[in-house]
């Protein structure tokens, strides 16, 4: 039963997540909330592992979520669920629709879809950030700001955006450095 639900949830994600990369993220935040399969913190951990390992981000996330929910069969089911809509849609386009990407309706739809997809990622990213920096799921219930987390975030922003020499360094380096900082300064024991 859980396998069927996994397939359905990831099929939906694969069908509606547009633009690749983190586009699947808002869907996974929603999925965790509505199914109780994983928390936002666990999801953030999965993003880190998925970013640090080879393969497309969405596929890595599907495998990871599927595994934590229902073991190896879950991982395979979730991954197949995620890619199934892609395969079906692309095969249809390849066979029936020439110059699909030049169609004016497709172009216009994607002109609006792109900012919408970016807005979804921004909102779901914010909800994870609130959890990370305030330790609660809502802004109003915030007890205290984690100053260690805020300091690390400020430093990372400076390194990944401000300083041109380090801007192009692969994210895996920052993830490893953050793990080290977390251990040295005991981030979990706030």
């Amino acid at each position, binding site marked *: 039963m859980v396998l069927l639900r996994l397939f359905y949830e990831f099929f939906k994600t694969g069908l509606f997540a547009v633009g690749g990369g983190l586009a699947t993220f808002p869907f996974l935040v*929603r999925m965790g909330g509505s199914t109780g399969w994983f928390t936002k913190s666990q999801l953030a951990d999965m993003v880190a592992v998925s970013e640090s390992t080879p393969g497309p981000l969405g596929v890595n996330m599907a495998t990871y979520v599927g595994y934590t929910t229902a073991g190896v069969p879950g*991982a395979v089911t979730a991954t197949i669920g995620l890619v199934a809509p892609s395969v079906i849609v*692309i*095969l249809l386009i390849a066979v029936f629709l020439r110059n699909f990407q030049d169609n004016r309706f497709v172009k*216009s739809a994607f002109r*609006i879809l792109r900012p*919408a997809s970016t807005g979804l990622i921004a*909102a779901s990213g914010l909800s994870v950030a609130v959890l990370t920096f305030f330790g609660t799921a809502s802004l109003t219930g915030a007890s205290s700001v984690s100053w260690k987390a805020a300091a690390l975030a400020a430093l990372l922003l400076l390194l990944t955006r401000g300083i041109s020499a380090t801007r192009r360094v692969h994210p895996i380096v920052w993830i490893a450095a953050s793990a080290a900082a977390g251990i040295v300064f005991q981030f979990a024991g706030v």
Partner: protein
Amino acid sequence: MTGLWELFWTFAKVGVMTFGGGYAMLPILEREVVENRHWATDLELTDYFAIGQCTPGVIAVNTATFIGQKRRGALGGVVATLGVVFPSVVIILILAGLISNFASLTAVQNAFAGIRVCVCVLIFNAVCKLWKSAVTGRLTLAVFLAVAVLSYFLSVSPALFVLAAAGIGIALELRNSPGREEEEK
């Protein structure tokens, strides 16, 4: 005729060499598919990539399906897709198993608490990067703000926002009369 095994392994290689997906895989596809295998030209690859972005799902998977389909039909599309996801599944399964065994260690918990901060920064950077190509004027800015605010405060499926956005985009184009479109050209 391209062998199915060849399709599978070539795309497994692409999958293993791609970190993070999206544009990161374009140079790798170029080398494997265009230069080494001659399965597509540079121009075709750019087209497939553009279509991959204009269709739902993971871009790497969309591109793999397209090239596989071109070489060996529908079966080729499926085999190429299985190839591109195969390394992910194996690597993540090994890691997920390892991490869940060590999750109770204090050091691991501290490490992931630090990593979560980094993930927030990475998501922020990804949004900034997407912003550049997505938010190009007043209309797209309004869409971004409306979706960000509504999806943050309302417990509504992201799928609804995606459907609504696609609908609005198509409606806007329908309002443009075909005659005017011709004149503009």
